C-alpha cells in the first residue's frame, strides 16, 4: 500500500508512539504472561503495524480500532487495570480490529525465540545433536515404564469389553495427595 504525499494522505497515527503504546497494551492484556520480556510484546506490536500497513483493509481496521479505544465510556484505555481492560476487549472481540490483533499475535508472539526461552522451549535441536544426550528422557519423577509391547497373560481384545476393568467416568480434580504420592 502506498500513501499520497499530500495533505489528503491519512495522518500517520499508526506510526505514532501513542498508537504503538495502545497496541502493546492491547496485546499484553489479551495475552498476559508474567514471564515474558517487554521486548516480546513490543516486537509483536511492531510486526502487526508493519503487517497492517501492507493492505488497506487491515490498515483501516487497526487505525480506527486503536484510535477509538479511548472514546469508549470507561475512559483512557491505558489507564485501565487489567480486569477492566480485559472486559473492554471482550466487548469488541468480534470486531475485525480485534480479530486482526488476536490472530496475528498468536502467529507472531509465540514464534519469537525469546518467548520460547521464557516458556521453557529449546527450539532447533538437530544441529546440537538432537536431545539424545540433552535430556530427551531426563524425567525422573515417575518410574521407568515398559517400552516393549505387552506380553502378559491377557489376550488383546478386538471386539467386546476388556477382560479387566479400566478407569472410566469423570476425571476427578487432581488432589494434592495424589500428586504427593506421585512425586515421592
Amino acid at each position, binding site marked *: 500500500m502506498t500513501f499520497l504525499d499530500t495533505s489528503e494522505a491519512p495522518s500517520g497515527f499508526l506510526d505514532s508512539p501513542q498508537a504503538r503504546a495502545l497496541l502493546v497494551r492491547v496485546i499484553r492484556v*489479551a*495475552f*498476559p*504472561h508474567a*514471564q515474558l520480556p517487554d521486548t516480546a510484546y513490543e516486537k509483536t506490536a511492531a510486526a502487526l503495524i508493519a503487517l497492517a500497513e501492507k493492505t488497506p483493509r487491515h490498515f483501516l481496521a487497526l487505525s480506527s480500532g486503536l484510535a477509538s479505544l479511548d472514546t469508549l465510556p470507561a475512559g483512557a484505555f491505558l489507564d485501565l487495570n487489567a480486569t477492566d481492560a*480485559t472486559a473492554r476487549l*471482550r466487548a469488541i*472481540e468480534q470486531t475485525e480490529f480485534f480479530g486482526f490483533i*488476536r490472530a496475528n*499475535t*498468536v*502467529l507472531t*508472539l*509465540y*514464534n519469537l525465540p525469546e518467548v*520460547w526461552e521464557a*516458556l*521453557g*522451549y529449546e*527450539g532447533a*535441536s*538437530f544441529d546440537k545433536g*538432537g*536431545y*539424545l544426550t*540433552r*535430556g*530427551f*528422557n*531426563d*524425567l525422573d519423577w*515417575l*518410574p521407568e*515404564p*515398559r*517400552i*516393549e*509391547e*505387552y506380553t502378559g497373560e*491377557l489376550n*488383546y*481384545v*478386538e*471386539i*467386546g*469389553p*476388556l477382560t*479387566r476393568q*479400566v*478407569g*472410566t467416568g*469423570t*476425571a*476427578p480434580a*487432581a488432589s494434592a495427595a*495424589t*500428586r504427593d*504420592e*506421585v*512425586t515421592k
Partner: protein
Amino acid sequence: MTAIDHDEEAVVIIGSGAGGGTLAYELTARGIKVVVLEAGPHITNAEYVNDEWAAFSQMAWLDPRTTSGSWRIARDFPNLPAWIVKAVGGSTTHWSGATPRFLAHEFEARSTYGAIDGANLLDWPLTLAELAPYYDRAEIAMGSTHRHGRAALPANNNYKVFANGAARVGYNFYATGPYATNAEPYDGRPASVQDGFNFQGDKSGAKWSTLVREIPRAEATGHLDLRPLSQAVQISHDRTGRADAVLYLDAAGGMHRQRARIVCVAGNSIETPRLLLLSASSLFPDGLANSSGQVGRNYMRHTTGSVYAQFPDPVHSYRGETMAGIIADEARHDERRGFAGGYYLETLSLGPAFLAAFANPGAWGRDFTAILDGYAHTAGLWIVGEDMPQETNRITLNGSVTDAAGLPVANVNFDDHPNDVAMREHGYRQAELLYDAVGSISAHRTPPYPSTHNLGTSRMSARPEDGVVNKFGRAHDVPNLFVSDGSVFTTGAAANPTLTIVALAIRQADHIAEQLANGTL
C-alpha cells in the same frame, strides 16, 4: 536422471507420497518404466528447518481450498482443511511415524457394526488375511519398531508420563511403537537422535519416508522419470474409454501431455477426487470413474482430538520423537462405550508456536495463556479413531474459487457423525483420567487439527455401484486407471493410515506387474 519421452506410453503415477512413491519403486524395481508427476518441489532432508512455521511454509500444501459444513475447521481454518505436504515424498516427509495395522473386523465394518443411521458403511472387498503378507513387506520396508526384529525406541519424557498413566488406569497394550523411525541404524539410515522434529521433516533420515527410501531407489533403477513441480490437471481417455494420457502444468504454467499406458492416481484424498472430477468428458460426464457417483464422497479424516495436561514437575515433552507412544486398549469395537469402532491414544508434542495456533483457535485471555505458561510442564497425546463414512462428507469442485491456473479448487464439506462425537468425548475423558492418575494439575482439550489423515473419497467396493475401485485399486469404470492412495479406504479403521496405504501400494504393484506380464492390462 532418466528421461522418458512424452510420447512414450509409460506408467504414469500422480503423486510421490506413501502410495505413489511406493508404487513407483515397486514397479521400477521390476523394470517397468514410470513417470511420476509430483505437484511439489524436490526438497531434501538437509533443506528442512527445525522451526514450525518456517517448515510449514516450506512444505505444506497451501494452494487454496475451501470448506463447508459444521466442523470447526470451516470456522477456524476455512482455507486449510488438511495439513499435508506438497513436495517429493508427499506427506510421508512430515508424518509422525506410527504404524499400527488394521484389526480384522475393521475390514468388515458394515457386518460388524451393523447399520448406523447416516453412515455409508460398507465392508472392504479385502480381508486382513489377504493383506497380511503385504503388511509384513511394508513394515520391513519402513523399519517399523517392535516388528521383524527392529528394536523399540527408548522412552522419552512424554512417553514416561503417558505410559505410567496408562498403567495406572489399567491399560496394558501400550508401547513406544510400532513406529517407522529407527531406534538403531537400519536399511542404510541412522538411528533417531531424538531431535523432536517430525512434522517439519526429519533432517537425519532416521524416519522412513518415500523421499529417503523408495524415490532414490526407484531412480537408481534407471526406470523412473521423476518430475517435480508438475501438477496433474486432467486424465484423458481414448474412444474406448481407456486412459491414454495425463495433462499437467509445469512451474511456469506450461501445459504438457504425457502419454500413458496405465495411470495411477495418488494425490491424497482431496486432490485425487478433484483430478477425477476435473477429468469429466462427454463419455464420463460426472467425472472419470464416477458411474457410481461415489467419487469425492465418504470423505473421512479420523476422529481426533488432543489433551495437553500440566504437572507440578517438568516434562519437556518436546524433546524426542513426537509420537513414540501408542495405547491400543481402546482400539477395540465395544458397543458398551456408546459408539462403534475404536481409537488409539498416541503421544504428541507441539512447539509453542503450533500449540498456540491449534490449542483453542480463536481463544485469548488468561485461560488461553495458561496453556502456554505451563509449556515445560506439559504432556500431550492425540486421539485417533475410526470416523463414520458419510455420503455428504464430500470433496466437490468449487465453482467460484479457482487456483493459480484458473481451475476450480476443491471444497471439503464435513459434519461430524454422532458416533464421531461420542468417540471423541470418550477419548478426551480417558486421556484426562490417564493424566490425572499421574498427578496432573490441569488438562486442556484441543479440537481436531486440520486433517492429516484424509481418506475414502474413491473407495474400494466389491460392486461397481457401491464404490470407485476394486480390491486392487483399479477403477470399476476404466480398466487401466488405478487409485493408489488413502482415497481407496472403504472405511477408515482406527489405525494411522500410512502403513496400510504402503501395504496396498505394494499389493497393487504386484497386481499391475502380473497383469502387464500376462498381457491383460
